[in-house]
Each structure stands twice: as structure tokens, then as C-alpha cells.
């Protein structure tokens, strides 16, 4: 039986200057890239396929399969674009990875680029994280100096450059085709598919887009083998991944575990709910995945398990809320997020998210009118399935799932403000209030 936690990507985090190439090499870094450069590119794709790695950016598409769609007979250059936009509310795994060990991603990029015959790779990092950009830029410079980037890397005959590109604050640029438009210097608005990026992506050339965690997982697979990876996890959800816990738990944080661990197990590891409070609801994979309740504590956190209870694994970002929390308030805040981040390209999403916010605001203020909850659901139906990209699905899911589980609380908004039913200061947890009393004021 595999252990409950399986630190692989985070194994070197927290060591002395873990972000430096010297530290990364000491922990065995770049041995996988060395190995890969001696294989045929198609064999590298084959290993990743056999491992059964599925994309960690939310949709769970098989990574090796995606790579195999790149038409190698297309005369245009091939591009690899790493999605480091990490902006889905609740999601907080890629940024710590890039701060602690940027070379893990960069080694993954070397291997993945070699596999798909790419000579210019991009990392699109969300703009609002300067130190992540600094560490990535410095890491790329180190690799150039060490002969791991540039012409004829390590004498292999393979050329590769990596461009670190900072975004500018737009959640929609995490959607892969909007990301490409943004990287081409345009407004970040999704493109019609087909053509899929693998065929006509960046500059209308074959392009693979993968999440930071997906590409960072590749070196471990090459190093230890497809069987090793597939030996962890569940039947159709192979391997290990980051689960991120935040909110009203005693100790929030990152847990690298085989797919299929349950929320109950993760909750125990994080010390449980804060003292004298109980779990009310949680998201399994960011705000775009339908919320769940204590009823779902024992459902395996893999793609199939989450689908079986009408939710999604998404980014494996568990935002945990206790009984002091008003679900109307959190739903409103998420809706405000989607309204603000709707790119405006299509009417149902642009206008619909605006109406969701109007309705939720008056429910929060206790000024809802009889029938508002049904109206809310009617608006979600006008958005769902009629919009251009998956942002709209997320905007709808957070509302419909909340109403499904907590309808009476929304109806309470016809008469009573949410802040009276759920005094907001009771939900606030400044760190000094945490039972383990972590260094209040000590770290800044």
C-alpha cells in the first residue's frame, strides 16, 4: 500500500537556497533530462503516455496524448507554452513550486520540448507575483551559463530557449487559447476550437500548452519510469498530485499525495477544523468546481470520484469553510470575481455574470424579493452551455451548487441580511487566533 503522502515535487523545498541550480543538482536534478536526451523524442512521448499523467491545470486531459497530436510534418516551428497563470480562486500550488524550485519546471520544459521538437518555449506567469518572475528569470540565466539552454545543449545537438513572460492581471488568460492571444500581444480572449492549439496555436503554429505542475511532473516520470508513476493513484487517475487546503482548518497548506486520497484524510492531516467549529462546505478544485458538504468527506479525490458526486477535481484546491460562514456571501464574492473576469467576448457570460451579482447583492443585504432564488437559477440557465468558453461554466457551477445544498439560506436573503444571520467577524481568523498560535507578528 502506498503511503498517504508521497512528496516528490516538493521533496527539495525548504532546503538551503533550494531555488539555485547548485542545490537542484545536488538533489539529483537534471539526471532525467540527461536520460531523455539520449532517447528518441517519440519514446519520451511514449513514456509520458504510458505513465497516464493527466493535465494538472484543471481539465485532466492526458498529457502524452496531447503531445502526440503535434503534427511533426508541419513545417512551422513547434512551441511549448507553460501555463503559470494560476488564478482560479483557491488554487495556490504552482506559485510555491516556482518559488522553491523553478528548476523542476525548467527541467520538465527541457524534456517536454525535446519530446515535441520545440526550440522556443514560453512560461506565461501571472503578473501579480514579482518574486516568482525573479526566480524564474534567474533560473533561466543559470541554465544558459551551465549549457542547459541555448545551442546544442549538453552536446546533444538540441537547441532550446525559454522566455519568461509576465501577464498583467486577467484570469481568463489561464484559458489556453486566451493565453495564446495574450502572448501574441492582444486582449486575452478565447479562440474558437478547432483548430486546436496542437495544430494551430501560437503564431498559428503547432503548440502544446500545459500547466506548471504537469510539466514539473515529467522529470520524475522519466527518472523513475512510467510504471512507477502509474503504480500510484487510482485506476484511471494515475500518480500523485498537490492538494491545497485553505480556509478554516487548523493548518492550511500543500499536501502531495497519490490521487484518490479523501478529503477526510487531508482534513485530519491539516489538524481538522479550527477548534469548536465544524465543516460547512468546501470546494474540491477551486471556485469553478461545484461545492461539496460534509456528506462528501469520504469520496476519493480523483477525476472519477468527483464526477460521481456531480463535481470536478479541477485544480485540487480545497477551500474549507466552517459553520460561521455565509454561503450567500461566498457565492456573491465568487460571482463578483467571474463578473470582473468575464472577458466580454460573448453576451450570456458578460451580461449574465452581471445579473448574478445584482441578485446576489440584494440577497446578501436581506433585500431579496420572493422568487429571486428561482430567478438566480434562471439566469444560470441562460449562461450555461450558451457561452463561448469554460469560464462561464465555473461562474454557473458555484451558484447552482450552493443553491442546491443551501437553498433555505438563500431564501433567508428575502428578509435578513447575511451579516446578521452570520456575523462576519466570527468567520475571520487572524493568525494569532489559530490554535497552534503560529508566530503572530514574528515573520514580517
Amino acid at each position, binding site marked *: *500500500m*502506498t*503511503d*498517504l503522502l508521497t*512528496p*516528490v515535487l*516538493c521533496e527539495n*523545498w*525548504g532546503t538551503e537556497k533550494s*531555488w539555485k541550480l547548485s542545490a537542484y543538482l545536488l538533489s539529483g536534478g537534471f539526471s532525467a533530462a540527461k536520460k531523455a536526451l539520449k532517447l528518441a523524442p517519440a519514446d519520451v512521448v511514449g513514456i509520458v503516455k504510458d505513465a497516464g499523467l493527466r493535465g494538472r491545470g484543471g481539465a485532466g486531459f492526458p498529457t502524452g496524448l496531447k503531445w502526440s497530436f503535434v503534427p511533426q510534418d508541419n513545417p512551422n*516551428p513547434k512551441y511549448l507554452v507553460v501555463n503559470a497563470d494560476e488564478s*482560479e*480562486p483557491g488554487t*495556490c500550488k504552482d*506559485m510555491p513550486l516556482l*518559488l522553491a524550485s523553478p528548476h523542476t519546471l525548467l527541467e520538465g520544459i527541457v524534456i517536454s520540448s525535446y519530446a515535441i521538437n520545440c526550440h*522556443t518555449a514560453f512560461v506565461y506567469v501571472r*503578473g*501579480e*507575483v514579482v*518574486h516568482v518572475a525573479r*526566480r524564474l*528569470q*534567474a533560473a533561466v540565466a543559470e541554465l544558459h551559463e551551465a549549457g542547459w539552454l541555448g545551442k546544442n545543449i549538453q552536446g546533444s545537438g538540441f537547441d532550446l530557449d525559454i522566455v519568461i*513572460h509576465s501577464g*498583467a492581471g*486577467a484570469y481568463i488568460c489561464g484559458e489556453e487559447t486566451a493565453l495564446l492571444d495574450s502572448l501574441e*500581444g*492582444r*486582449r*486575452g480572449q478565447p479562440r474558437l476550437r478547432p483548430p486546436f492549439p496542437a495544430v494551430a496555436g501560437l503564431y498559428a503554429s503547432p503548440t502544446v500548452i500545459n500547466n506548471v505542475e504537469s510539466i514539473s511532473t515529467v522529470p520524475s516520470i522519466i527518472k523513475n*519510469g512510467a*510504471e*512507477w508513476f502509474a503504480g500510484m*493513484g*487510482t485506476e484511471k487517475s494515475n500518480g500523485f498530485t498537490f492538494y491545497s487546503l485553505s*480556509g478554516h482548518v487548523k*493548518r492550511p*497548506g*500543500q499536501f*502531495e*499525495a*497519490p490521487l*484518490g*486520497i479523501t478529503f477526510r484524510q487531508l482534513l485530519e*492531516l491539516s489538524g481538522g477544523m479550527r477548534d469548536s467549529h465544524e465543516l460547512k462546505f468546501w470546494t474540491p478544485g477551486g*471556485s469553478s468546481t461545484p461545492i461539496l458538504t460534509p456528506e462528501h468527506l469520504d469520496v476519493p479525490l*480523483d477525476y472519477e*470520484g468527483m464526477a460521481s458526486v456531480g463535481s470536478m477535481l479541477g485544480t485540487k484546491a480545497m*477551500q474549507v469553510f466552517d459553520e460561521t460562514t455565509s454561503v450567500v*456571501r*461566498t457565492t456573491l464574492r*465568487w460571482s463578483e470575481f467571474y463578473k470582473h473576469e468575464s472577458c466580454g467576448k460573448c453576451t450570456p457570460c458578460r451580461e449574465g455574470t452581471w445579473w448574478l451579482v445584482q441578485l446576489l447583492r440584494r440577497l446578501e443585504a436581506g433585500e431579496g424579493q420572493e422568487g429571486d432564488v428561482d430567478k438566480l437559477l434562471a439566469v444560470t440557465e441562460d449562461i450555461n452551455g450558451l457561452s463561448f468558453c469554460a469560464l462561464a461554466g465555473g461562474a454557473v457551477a458555484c451558484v447552482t451548487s450552493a443553491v442546491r445544498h443551501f437553498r433555505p439560506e438563500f431564501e433567508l436573503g428575502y428578509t435578513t441580511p447575511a451579516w446578521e444571520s452570520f456575523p*462576519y467577524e466570527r*468567520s475571520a*481568523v*487572524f493568525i*494569532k487566533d489559530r490554535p497552534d498560535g503560529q508566530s503572530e*507578528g514574528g515573520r*514580517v
Partner: protein
Amino acid sequence: MSGKEFQTYFPHSGRIDEANTSTEIDEKTIAELEEIVARYPQPRSAVLPMLHLVQSVDGRVSPRGLEVIAELAGITPAQVSGVATFYTMYRKHPAGKHHIGICVTALCAVMGGDILYDKVSEHLGVGDGETTADGSFSLERIECNAACDFAPVMMVNWEFLDNMTPEKATQILDDLAVGRPVKPNRGATLTSFKENERVLAGFNDGRADEGVSAGEPSLLGLSIAKERGWAAPKPGAAPKEEAPEAKEGSGK
């Protein structure tokens, strides 16, 4: 007035401030903008980093900035403006020396971000999108900044100030106001909005080695695994089994 005039829900023009034509862009800036263009297979790809560089010089997107970017990218100033106004990090009005962001997305808001925002706003005497009269601070309600396990989160010049409390936040603002050095929890000693915009434009400031490797929450799973002797299986020794059973303590 008939009382039936069209009323917009968007009273503020989304355009950049064309009335303020001041600029510090000079030959050196233009040479650096050219360097950015050279990084990309196609010049238009340089628009976002070029806008960051313009902000590092002018503290906002200036009309002159639009012009020079347009010329280098081979598009019109109106097209650059169309891009600039799409992204929230590009400013129509000058940022303060220090740009403060408080996360008010659901998780942070509930955990105390709303209280934090109110306190900071009161302390600075400015609201969302505003800059203090002396130009020291600008304030913004921001969205999830990928640090939810450190909630509530405050960003200063896009550096992480984790697990914030109103008391800590006001102390930080007071320190910054008198030029006392402030270290973010995960990042490099705070300098200014403009200097950090330069980094976002791709000009590294040589300070990547400042700051920690990881915060406590990032290391939580790893430290528990170490304590209990848990690890990924050794290669060649892992027959697949069913999903770990619920309630199973150590899986060993």
C-alpha cells in the same frame, strides 16, 4: 433634460488618461523596449512586457508610452490602448510609490480580508483605485493571488505579505512611510512599484536570492511525511492497489 437620457452603468471611461501627457520615457527606455522586442519571434508579443516597462518609468500607461510601443510592435496606438485597458495591472492613473493590494476574493474576504481592507483604507485615507495625495501609496481590492493557504493576503508592489492582520498591516504601512526596510514573507525587501514593474518587464534586478524557499504552509505536507516516514515508493517496487481506504491512518 427630459429625464430620459441614456444612463450608463459604466460612468468612468475605460480609456487611459490622455490629458496627462507627462513622461520620463527617454532614449534609454526606447533601447530597453527594443531589447524586449528582440526576445520574441514576433514584435507584437512584446506588448505586455513593454507596457510593464512603461509603467516602471511613468508609473502608469502614458500617452507617450502608447505611441512608442505601437511603433515598435507595428500596430496603432489605439490597438495598444485596447490591450492596455483590458488588463487590470495596467494603470490609467499613477500608482503610489508603494502599491497595496488586499485580496477580497471569497476565501480571503471571509478569513479577514474585508476587515483588513477597511482598516488599511481608513489608515491611508484612500479607497479602491486611489492614490494618497503625497503619492506614497495606492490601494486596490485584488482577487485571489494564489496564496490562499496564507490568507488573509496583502500584496505590496506584488510581493507577498502573508497571514496579514490589521495590526501588522498598519505597522508595515507606517514603516514604509518613513522609509524603514520591510521584508515580505516570501520575496525581496520592498523597493517600489516602479522598480518591480521593471522586473515584470523582464529586467531582473539580481535579487532572486533574497527571501525564503517556502513558507510554512507550503512545507506542511512534506514535514508531516518526514515525521511519519512516508515517501513515494522506490522505482520498481510499486504494484498498484485500490484507492487508499478512508480512515486508514498510515498507509504502511
